[in-house]
């Protein structure tokens, strides 16, 4: 990013609140220092991505002889095709495509089910609390801090005893369980922020638990649901640990396949294919991130305010 690029942009979108820094004079040593720091920091974050993109477009001889930072002399998309369809893990040479399908099959139902459960939880906790409900909620929030390793083994045993270990429903249940603390907290805080008159009006009209939920609460929940979907799609797509433990070999998600392709290959390491595979695996959450923009930050901030 050059100084002229920055000067050309006239209206950078502002956050809700104003920055506090001093009003900038046109050019001063201080301003140059500010931008220098930010640009150097940006390079630290961008260079790895640049290297991956550039390398994934090179052939292997060029990688071996040329400089890592050079643009590809003879750009080729063959590594990308190989990464998606032909890269090998052990004897199977189908590339990332089975993993991609598995990730879709895991992510879509997990996101839907976990959000349905959490929104009902949040609604019930806010408007229909029963004796002990807050203790349950406290336990759930505590669960958000528990290291996964502490409960993984009992879950393996539990799921095996009902025949769901190493299966698609099993991994979906696992994602629903571990998404529940944070999502329930999000929905509870959201419903608690709505005016209680909405609920009371529903009650006066004789609506019960489910009627109020479906006709009043769900239509109001669009913003929080966007945040929840972003959190869950990126979180579940990026998951590795649960996928490798609970999904079973035939349902391994993309992240597991990627790690297998890259870290278990014997013989010559095809860096270009590996890097293309890495970018492909990161593509879905990155698209979500860039499309959602501010919502993503809001999701982190909301998700971070635990307890």
């Amino acid at each position, binding site marked *: *990013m050059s100084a002229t*690029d*920055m000067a050309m942009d006239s209206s*950078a979108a*502002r956050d*809700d*609140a*104003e*920055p*506090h*820094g*001093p*009003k900038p004079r046109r050019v001063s040593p201080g301003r140059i220092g*500010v931008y220098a720091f930010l640009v150097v920091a*940006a390079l630290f*974050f961008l260079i*790895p*991505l640049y290297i991956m993109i550039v390398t994934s477009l090179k052939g292997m001889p060029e990688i071996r002889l040329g*400089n*890592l930072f050079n643009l590809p002399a003879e750009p080729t998309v063959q590594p990308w095709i190989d990464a998606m369809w032909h890269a090998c893990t052990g004897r199977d040479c189908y590339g990332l495509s089975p993993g991609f399908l598995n990730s879709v099959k895991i992510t879509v139902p997990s996101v839907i089910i976990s959000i349905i459960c959490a929104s*009902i*939880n949040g609604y019930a*906790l*806010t408007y*229909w609390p029963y004796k002990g409900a807050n203790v349950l909620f406290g336990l*759930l929030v*505590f669960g*958000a801090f*528990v*290291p*996964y*390793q*502490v*409960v*993984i*083994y*009992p879950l393996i*045993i*539990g799921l095996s005893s009902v025949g769901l270990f190493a299966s698609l429903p099993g991994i979906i249940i696992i994602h629903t369980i571990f998404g*529940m603390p944070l999502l329930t907290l999000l929905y509870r805080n959201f419903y608690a922020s709505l005016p209680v008159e909405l609920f009371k009006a529903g009650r006066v009209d004789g609506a019960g*638990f*489910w009627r109020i939920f479906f006709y009043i609460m769900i239509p109001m929940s669009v913003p929080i649901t966007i945040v929840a979907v972003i959190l869950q799609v*990126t979180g579940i797509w*990026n998951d*590795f*640990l649960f996928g490798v*433990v609970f999904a079973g070999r035939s349902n391994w998600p993309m*992240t597991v396949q990627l*790690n297998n392709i*890259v*870290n278990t290959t014997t013989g010559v390491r095809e860096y270009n294919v*590996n890097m293309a595979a*890495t970018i492909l*695996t*990161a593509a879905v959450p*990155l698209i979500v*991130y860039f499309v959602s*923009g501010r919502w993503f930050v809001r999701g982190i*901030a909301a998700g*971070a305010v635990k307890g």
Partner: protein
Amino acid sequence: MASLRRAFPVHSIIGTVPMILVSVGVFVVGIGFSVMWSFTSSKLFPNWDFVGLLQYERLWATDRWLVSVNNIWIFGLLSIACNMVFGYLLAVFMDQRIRQEDTFRSIFLYPFAMSLIVTGLVWQWALDPNLGLQTAVRKFGWESFTFAPLVDPQLAIYGLVVAGIWQGAGVTMAILLAGLRGIDAEIWKAAKVDGIPNWRAYLFIGLPMMRGAIATAFVLQCVSVVRVYDLVIAMTGGGPGYATTMPAVYVIQLITVRQNVGQGMAAATMMLMPILLVVIIGGILMWRRNRKATA
């Protein structure tokens, strides 16, 4: 919301059955089983042959575990400290009425959107002696340049720290920047009127006034440090040897590859201890504050 409380809202209980199952079934019963199995001689499958604290004694006599505990301290302290400092610096610089704020924000934050597996692989390559930084610098002409932390057992853990910063500094920046923007503008004006230099205002007025944001960023970092698994697996696989193994990796290895469930559960219980401690201390603090508020 006491007016809404009813003795027995049946539908509410039916609706929250999943929550009851998860809260009690997973986070109480599950943890209970893990802790109980840590007192047994379970190998491949759990059994109920109680052996007292034997698994804990063995655990703390295992070099691999001691290394992983040591690593989590180094990794945790360094990556949290660097993330907080670097994140706050970025936030302060982002707060200087810069142009292209959104662009910078996107750049600083995008690594967080990707899987830790991706981060691990990216940095595995960047620090690979035959491919990454070392080769690149040598090809620029500095032939004796040596920088290959991941193949050195003493330095590999610091490679993980760099990857951790790359992944997490942007989030810290975003949270702390939101905290900075949440401070009342009058306070900054007052500081300016009093002639307090900018850097002192950020250090001595800004920081203390955004305890909430700092606590949030800190807790987020702590939770992710204790859970660090994917990053290690993708970047070093716990190697060279077992120089970069971590408690989370150790537990998974024991219950899968090494088929030593008893000791794995003992290690898992040890992982739970610091969290329990923090939760209990936090609980006491909140209880005391509530009591003060009502008194």
